[in-house]
């Protein structure tokens, strides 16, 4: 019996997945965490930046052990 075909297939690279994850979560954090629109944008941008920086830093920190 053939395996069922997936309804949808979303092929993302590591970086694309991380970008998308950081973007969605940052926007949600900004909206939940702050009241004023300007504060929300600032908080979301700051969260996004930190997500990316920490993600890339951990990626490089693991690099020596990947081979």
């Amino acid at each position, binding site marked *: 019996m053939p395996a069922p*075909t997936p*309804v949808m297939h979303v092929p993302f690279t590591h970086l694309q997945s991380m970008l998308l994850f950081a973007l969605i979560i940052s926007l949600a954090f900004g909206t939940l965490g702050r009241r004023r629109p300007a504060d929300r944008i600032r908080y979301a941008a700051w969260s996004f930046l930190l997500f990316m920086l920490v993600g890339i830093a951990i990626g490089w920190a693991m690099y020596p052990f990947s081979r």
Partner: protein
Amino acid sequence: MDEPVKDAPQTESLPSPVAAPSEEGRALMALAICAAGWAVPGLGHALQKMWGRALAVFLAVGALVILGAGMRGNVFTSRGEDAFATLGYFADLGSGSFYFLARAAESAGPDVSHSTGDYGTRFIATAGVLNLLAALHAYEAARGRKA
């Protein structure tokens, strides 16, 4: 001769037509809002007319669930084989009704042999945890605490 009756204190003894909810009633209402927010992402905030936050939670949790299922992430079931699978199940269940959406969208089952599937697993788990956070936020707002 009788003393004239003063009418000022009468207003205090009469019940107000729009009674303020008691502390217990308010706590119950907050719990109901929290449960609604868990069951349908964003509903807890929508019931309090926080439209922006309701929309943000609904879209964020929905996007994470749909993308996670599309990436063929693992949607954990209650029949977990180890503690991590059980933890994953509780995280996934945090997205409320969207958990069943993820199960339905992933008709071909998970594929974590590629990194995309592994990311999908995290997306789905994060959707659940984010929704739990939003439900807690809605509860705090309903209790009148700073949120």
